[in-house]
């Protein structure tokens, strides 16, 4: 499980933040909240209160302004998650082609329920609403990657791949 320790962006990341801020007019730097929260989640694994406070200070805005945004948008993990968050779409079109069974299979394979993380911190299962892959379901998103036309066999392959990646230096 990735913990939030040492809440500071690297110099490279801070340069990226400065580039982002230039996209918005003077005094409208609050607009960069979502892009910066995405970067923070990438670097720190999840969005803790400390991370939100750090983002607020970067943007020179009130802490509450970040809290209310981070808690509104579903992509931000407000609790620690596993290294691989398996976000399975469960909305209408994916349900029509079997997303319920995919979730059940994942729960059975990993011995955890929707929303839980495996004890080794490798996987979290999360059911989510429509991911815009309705013609290619059942599907799940892991990181930035879409995995479509899922079957039990395909799930087995993917889990094995994630496990192998975790053991590589």
């Amino acid at each position: 499980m990735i913990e939030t320790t040492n809440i500071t962006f690297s110099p490279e990341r801070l340069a990226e933040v400065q580039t982002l801020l230039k996209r918005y007019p003077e005094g409208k730097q609050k607009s960069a909240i979502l892009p910066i929260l995405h970067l923070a989640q990438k670097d720190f694994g999840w969005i803790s209160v400390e991370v939100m406070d750090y983002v607020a200070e970067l943007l020179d805005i009130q802490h509450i302004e970040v809290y209310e945004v981070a808690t509104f948008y579903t992509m931000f993990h407000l609790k620690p998650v596993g290294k691989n968050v398996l976000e399975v779409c469960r909305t209408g079109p994916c349900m029509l082609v079997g997303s319920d069974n995919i979730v059940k299979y994942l729960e059975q394979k990993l011995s955890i329920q929707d929303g839980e993380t495996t004890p080794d911190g490798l996987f979290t299962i999360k059911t989510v609403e429509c991911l815009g892959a309705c013609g290619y379901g059942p599907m799940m998103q892991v990181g930035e990657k879409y995995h479509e036309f899922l079957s039990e066999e395909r799930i087995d392959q993917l889990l094995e791949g994630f496990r192998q990646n975790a053991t590589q230096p």
Partner: protein
Amino acid sequence: MSRLKILTEHIDKPEITGIEGYIKHGGYRAVEKALKKMQPDEVTEEVKKSGLRGRGGAGFPTGMKWSFIFKGNDKPRYLLCNADESEPGTFKDRLLMEKIPHLLIEGMIASSFALGVKTAYIYIRGEYMYILHILQKAIDEAYAKGYLGENILGTTYSLDLHVHPGGGAYICGEETALIESLEGKRGNPRIKPPFPAVEGLWGCPTIVNNVETICKVPFIINEGGETYANIGIGASTGTKLISACGNINKPGVYEIELGVPVEEFIYSDEYCGGIKGGKQLKALVPGGSSVPILPNRLITKTAKGEPRLMSYESLSDGGFPTGSMLGSGGFIVFDEDQCIVRNTWNFSRFYHHESCGQCSPCREGTGWMEKILHRMEYGHGRMEDIDLLWDVQRKIEGNTICPFGDASAWPVAAAIRHFRDEFEWHVLHPAEATRRNYGMGRSAEPIEQVTA
């Protein structure tokens, strides 16, 4: 049969993603023409002539929307591209942005020129982060080639274009919620008026257009508005991307000339290729999850007995009791084994999950609908629940500050209207209802045998 493809003619060519390949296939001609040979108002006039309607779902005439941009002050004006694409059943904009990103960028430049915009944003749903990288690379290429930045192509026109990620909220597809989100706030829709064209992003005049809408602009500039208006049928001009999914043989995104018969779209090999497994067609949601579902008897024929066409007018023919909407073009097909109660519950769960919570009827009502439908689906329904559901959806529709309330109410209303017997069956047969595995269609009995 070879059909006219305005957006997707070259989409399968791998080189089209890069700027050189895009230019090789005629890209950026519209920018050259607009910036060097036309006045901004002339571009708007061509878009008006084309009859182009917004492709995000509402279908409002694009040229008219542009003409509303407020010019009475010297505030900056903004163009926002709505790439939030979160309507279940809809995955068409994703194709355009992924495969042919320069088409969107060209459309943004030409549209911004027409509107007098100096800075424009593409607001893309956060889940499409891999597409954001594709768009950013394309934007960088466009800057390097002089299509973006200061004095584009040696003219006096300058434009900056940025891509901005959302955070996974369906409501941010509503234009004022999108603006709030881009301002760094929760995606709570604003009360209109003032409309964004007068007071939008940071209080400045703003136009919000869908990806597909913007991508149509280069063709209209190159070929003329009249040429575009001559494609399609009646007031449904041009082509439309339809994202087809559900129980069909060939799910995917198809560009159609508006006016294609719905029957042809479902059964021809050129498009959906018929129902998977040779099953019967039970129902159709033609325009994304929010639009009313059509039962089998009203899919291929209208209430008047005329062939149902893929057009704004034909799909809504007869008004609510017998019509639906073209909407976003999210075409969801249900075979005979699918359970309407389960599907309606699923959509209600979606709307409950995604409600921003600002208006009480929507915040509370979507939750009530989900709970009632859940108990019906899982064998605890009561006969009076059907009327209660009807009552709740009626109290949401039209009583919220944005169309989200309507979007949550319409699927419930249409399901009860057309499939009331199936709701009654669930109440009368609770044990059977819980055992039926409609999702995979393995143990479902033919719907014809399901009677009260």
